């Protein structure tokens, strides 16, 4: 960590072996994540439901569905645990943010309500320009102090913790001081990780707005990436939503014991219109019933047929599909894993 960038901050080491700081043990892969390697890093990114105090994670997204799937779970979990939630919005106003959160699947059957929480202050959405640019100039130290004060206030008020999330797109507008944004992220990293911390943060990075190298440097100022919660994980089968393309990633084994969970997840995924992509690269075992359940999503839903794309299909499953003749079902696209 001796190399300094042109803003005087240490540059993250590139390469998968690089580790940084004390937080690296828990999620080694992200420490040296490059923008290119970010996709790999997501495989070991922290599920939002697993976040702990002291975490300062980056949400690097390419679409709003993914973004609000993570944030809604973050907010919901916080409300359930009596945390104060501060949401620093930039591209949309507070009202729109509340709508987005309330519409996300995480709140579909939740016992907590976004609007109620916003009304009584447990959830505080506010424009980032108000919070960070009050003096007309973005000041990393001042902003870190401000956040610290907010956290302390919330704890004094009796909240059991504080969850912060903020959009980062404002840093790209050339407002005064925002050239020091990476310094700010770097300082946050230290502040959140302080011993006894009862706060956590998710910084939202829209991949479409940041350059690869820029994003790599910014992401490296975090403990790692945050990802959407698994839909299911029982130690045998793990099911994780995917967003680009929309679908599910399956890993582990599908057999008679895990089939019900798969069916449930497929039913949820099939509520959404459009084609469905199932990433099977991590599927070490799957029986014919499991394959059938996947293929049957072609015709479920409101009667509109969709295409089911089976991606990175392991060799044994490609064989099973061929034996059953299911690789030639209309609406099924089988993409075998490279061997």
């Amino acid at each position: 960590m001796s190399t300094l960038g042109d803003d005087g901050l240490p540059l993250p080491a590139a390469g998968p072996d690089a580790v940084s700081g004390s937080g690296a043990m828990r999620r080694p892969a992200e420490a040296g994540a490059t923008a290119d390697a970010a996709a790999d890093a997501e495989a070991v990114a922290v599920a939002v439901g697993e976040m702990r105090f002291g975490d300062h994670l980056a949400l690097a997204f390419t679409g709003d569905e993914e973004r609000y799937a993570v944030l809604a779970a973050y907010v919901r979990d916080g409300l359930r645990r009596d945390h104060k939630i501060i949401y620093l919005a930039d591209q949309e106003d507070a009202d729109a943010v509340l709508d987005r959160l309330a519409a996300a699947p995480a709140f579909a059957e939740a016992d907590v309500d976004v609007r109620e929480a916003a009304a009584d202050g447990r959830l505080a959405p506010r424009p980032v320009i108000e919070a960070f640019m009050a003096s007309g100039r973005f000041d990393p130290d001042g902003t870190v102090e401000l956040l610290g004060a907010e956290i302390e206030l919330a704890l004094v008020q009796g909240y059991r913790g504080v969850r912060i999330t903020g959009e980062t797109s404002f840093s790209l507008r050339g407002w005064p001081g925002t050239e020091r944004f990476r310094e700010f992220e770097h300082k946050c990293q230290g502040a959140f990780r302080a011993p006894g911390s009862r706060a956590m943060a998710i910084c939202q990075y829209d991949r479409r707005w940041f350059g690869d190298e820029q994003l790599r440097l910014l992401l490296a100022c975090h403990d790692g990436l945050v990802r959407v919660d698994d839909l299911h994980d029982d130690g045998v089968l793990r099911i994780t939503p995917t967003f680009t393309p929309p679908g599910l990633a399956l890993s582990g084994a599908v057999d008679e014991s895990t089939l019900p969970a798969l069916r449930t997840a497929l039913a949820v995924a099939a509520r959404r219109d459009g084609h469905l992509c199932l990433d099977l690269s991590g599927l070490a075992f799957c029986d014919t019933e499991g394959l059938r359940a996947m293929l049957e999503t072609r015709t479920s839903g409101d009667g509109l047929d969709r295409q089911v794309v089976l991606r990175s299909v392991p060799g044994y499953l490609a064989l099973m599909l061929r034996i059953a003749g299911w690789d030639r079902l209309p609406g099924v696209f089988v993409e075998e894993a490279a061997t």
Partner: protein
Amino acid sequence: MTGGAPTPAPSPRHGEPLTNDEPLTNGEPLTNDEPLTNDEPLTNDGPADDDFGRRPSRGRLRHRALLYASDEEFREIALAYLADGAAAGDVLVAILPEARRRLLFAAPGDAAEGLGEIEILDASDWYGGPTRTIASFHERGRTGWWGRGRLRVLTEPPWEGRSPLEIVEWQRHESLLNVAFAATPTLLTCAYDIRAVSGDVLAGAARTHPAFTDAAGEWPSPSYTDPAAFYAECNRSPLGPPPLAAEHRRFCTGQLPDVRRFLSGRAERHGLPPDRRLPFLLAANEVATAVIRNGGGRGDLWVWATADELVCELADPAARVEDRFLGHIPPRLDRPTEAAMWAVRCLCHIVEIRSDARSGTRIRLHVRLDAPDAPVTQG
């Protein structure tokens, strides 16, 4: 003792007059509106309908045994048979052992040269396993042969070196062809070298082929047996108990990951090559799933090895399965539940099923340890 066909051969070549009321030289029309004689629901569709429910060109299987006693006789009949097919515009396929291929195709300027395009396949590759052979036939027929016209096949299944169990299962295979490909435009002639094959095999040929053929013509086999009856007969011989050395496990819902781990370890210990362990696990898991889901909910399994096979038997003491060609017929895409046992049979060398109300169901999977049993249908 593994059953077989105890009925003596009816010596068809001499016992029946050579009445030839169905000359094979005239190409049968491809559209055959003759009602199907077989009322089995499994059989009346022939090759699986294509992906849009359309049927391939309708037709009817003619499956005949050709018994010959000398190389010259084989050569003469075979060449005439193929020449007739060439003249009729049939799709010609020869599936023969090397020695027979040499007789027909080796010499330059051979009579076979004038026959035009003949697809020549090696019998020892083709007859790898009874179900896989049906799978390959189905796949090749569906994707190539039947779409181009009437299919005329000359084949000689290998019988030498088959174990008693294999002989029964290959005879069952010959009988099942009458069901699996009943409604396909196929003329299938199976050659038997009466110098080489046993009387049991010849007797079986008479019972599994509706007709005999030779240079002069074709006549019905008097001992031809309805495939369902033949199938039931093949199942009548009892399955011996697993050997004392077999390892035993019980299983019920939730335990299949453990079962797979256990079987994987045994497969490794008994020398099943790594690339064939997963297909074996898939097959055993599929059967165990059926026991848990459709059967009695819990079952027993035994695993052991013989000199050349890894064997896994799964038993459901509480439930009986309806075994009517179970897993032997290529599954139709609109009947996905038929696919599971079909897959099991494709993944294994031989699968034996015995089921009755008194003692439940036993399914014994045989996987070969030696031969490269690539369980792949042509894709």
